[in-house]
C-alpha cells in the first residue's frame, strides 16, 4: 500500500489553475522526485500535500488517512514533514533552537538524540549551534532547513529545492546521507532541479509540466533526454 497517495487534485490560485488532475503515489521506504521547469507547479504540489494550499478537487491520502483540507500542523502531527523552498529559518532563534523546533512533537531525551544525528550530518551546524540563524549564509540555511525536517522524524519528508545554493561537495554529501537515512526506512519526496542528480538519487520520478504530470516511471528506467524533452516542452526560449 502507498504511504502517500495524491488523487486527481486541482489547485487554484485565485482564478489561475496551477495544478490539473495531479495524481501521484509514494511507496514507503522510497525516494520519489519531482522534476519540472520553473513555475511548473512542483512547489504547489508539495505545499498542497502538507496543507499550505487547499485542493479544489481530489483528495490526498496519507498513511490511510484522508488529509486533504486539514491544517498543516495537523498533517505534521500525522507524520508528514517538509523543508520548504527558501529555507524559512526561525530568524530570532539560535541554530540549535531551530533544530529543536523540528522535534517539537517529540519527548525530551529523544530530541537530544536526533540533534546529535543532524549535527553528524551537518557538522557546520554544530559549530554554529549557539548563533542566531539570521547570520547564516544561504547554504547554511538550507542545511538548517533540511536538518530541521529530519529532526521531526516523520514518516515522510518532503524537501523542496533540496540543493538550492549548496556547494557541490555538500550536495554530494547530502545525497549520500539521504540514501543512508532512507535505508533506515524514511520515505522522501524531493524536488531537485538537476535532472541527472534527481534520477540518480530517487527510486521513482514524476515530471511536471504546466501543472500536469506528463511523465513518470522508475528512475533507473527513465531516459534523461526524454525527461528533458518532456519538461522543457514548450518552455524553451532560445
Amino acid at each position, binding site marked *: 500500500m502507498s504511504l502517500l497517495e495524491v488523487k486527481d487534485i486541482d489547485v487554484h490560485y485565485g482564478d489561475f489553475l496551477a495544478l490539473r488532475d495531479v495524481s501521484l503515489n509514494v511507496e514507503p521506504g522510497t525516494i520519489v522526485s519531482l522534476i519540472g521547469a520553473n513555475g511548473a507547479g512542483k512547489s504547489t504540489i508539495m505545499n498542497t500535500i502538507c496543507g499550505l494550499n487547499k485542493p479544489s478537487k481530489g483528495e490526498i491520502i496519507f498513511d490511510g488517512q484522508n488529509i486533504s483540507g486539514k491544517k498543516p500542523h495537523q498533517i*505534521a*502531527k500525522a507524520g508528514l*514533514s517538509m523543508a*520548504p523552498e527558501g529555507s524559512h*529559518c526561525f*530568524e*530570532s*532563534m539560535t541554530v540549535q533552537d531551530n533544530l529543536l523546533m523540528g522535534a*517539537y512533537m517529540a519527548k525530551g531525551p529523544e530530541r537530544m538524540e536526533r540533534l546529535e544525528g543532524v549535527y553528524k550530518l551537518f557538522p557546520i551546524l554544530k559549530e554554529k549551534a549557539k548563533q542566531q540563524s539570521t547570520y547564516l549564509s544561504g547554504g547554511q540555511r538550507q542545511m538548517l532547513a533540511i536538518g530541521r525536517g529530519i529532526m521531526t522524524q516523520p514518516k515522510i519528508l518532503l524537501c523542496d529545492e533540496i540543493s538550492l545554493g549548496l556547494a557541490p561537495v555538500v550536495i554530494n554529501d547530502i545525497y549520500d546521507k539521504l540514501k543512508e537515512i532512507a535505508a533506515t526506512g524514511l520515505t522522501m519526496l524531493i524536488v531537485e532541479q538537476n535532472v541527472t542528480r534527481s534520477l540518480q538519487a530517487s527510486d521513482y520520478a514524476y515530471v511536471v509540466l504546466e501543472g500536469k504530470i506528463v511523465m513518470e516511471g522508475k528512475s533507473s528506467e527513465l531516459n534523461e533526454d526524454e525527461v528533458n524533452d518532456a519538461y522543457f516542452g514548450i518552455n524553451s526560449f532560445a
Partner: protein
Amino acid sequence: MAQCIITGILLGGLYSMIGIGMSLVFGIMKLTNLAHGDLMILGTYITLVITRALGCNLIISTIISVIVMCILGFVIQQFLVNKVMDKGEAPALLVTFGLSIFLSNLMLKIFSADNQAINNSLSVKNVVSTENVSISASYLTSFIIAVVIIVGLTLVMQKTNFGRSIRATSDDPMAAELMGVNTKTAFAAAMVICMGITAVAGTLVGSTFTFYPSSGTQYLIIAFGVVVIGGMGSLFGTLIGGIVLGVAQLLGGFVFGSGVQMLIAYIVLLVIQALRPNGLFATSAMRK
C-alpha cells in the same frame, strides 16, 4: 535625590508592568497593539466592578479580572486579529486602532467619565518612612510583581517547548505550522498571556492612580516608551525600559520642576531611541 531615584526605580516597575503585554504582543505577533492602554484600563474597571459588586478581596477580583481578560484576549485574537494577520502588518495595526477608539468610548458609555480608584489599603501606606526617604507600599508591590512576572516569563519563553513554539511562530508562522505548531492557537495563547498580565497591570495602576475611561491613551504612551527604550519583544528590556523612564521622570522633576518631568522623560526616551533605534535590548527578529 535619593528619594527620587528610589521612587523612580519602583515606579519603573509599574511602568514595565504596563509595557510587558505590549512588548510581548509585538515580539510575538509583530503587532503594535494600539488598544493596549484601553484594554488595560478595561482590566482595571473589571477589577473595580467586581470588588464593588461582590465586595470581595482585591486578590480574588484581580484573578477574576485576569480570567475575563484572558477570555477577551482569546476572542480578540481569534475573531479580529487572526483574521487580518495574513493581510500584512498595517491591517492588523489598524484593527487595534479601531478597537482602541471603540473600547475607550464604550467604557465611557458604560462606566461614565467619573474618576475612579480601586479601594485598597496599600495606596496610602508606606513601607519605609524616614526623614529623607519613604517607600510607598503600592509602588513596591508593583515592582516586585513586575520582576517576578518578567523572570518567570523569560524562563518560559527560553526554556520550554511551549516558549520555543511561540517564538518560532513569531519568526515564521508557515515553517512553524510545518513543524506541527498550531500557529493560530499559539498566537491566541500568547495574546491570552499578554492580556492576563495586562489585567494585573491594570489592577496595579487602578490601585495606585485614579483613572477614567480615557486614561488608556496616557498609559499607551508609557507602554510605548518602556517598550521602545527596552526594545520591542525583549522582556528584560521592558524592565530596564520602565526603570529608565521612571528614574528619568523623577530626576527630571527633581532638577527641573515637576511640570517638566514628563518632558525630561520624553527627551531621554527620544535620545535613547535616536542612539539605539531598536531599543537597548532589541531581539534580532526585528532585523529585516
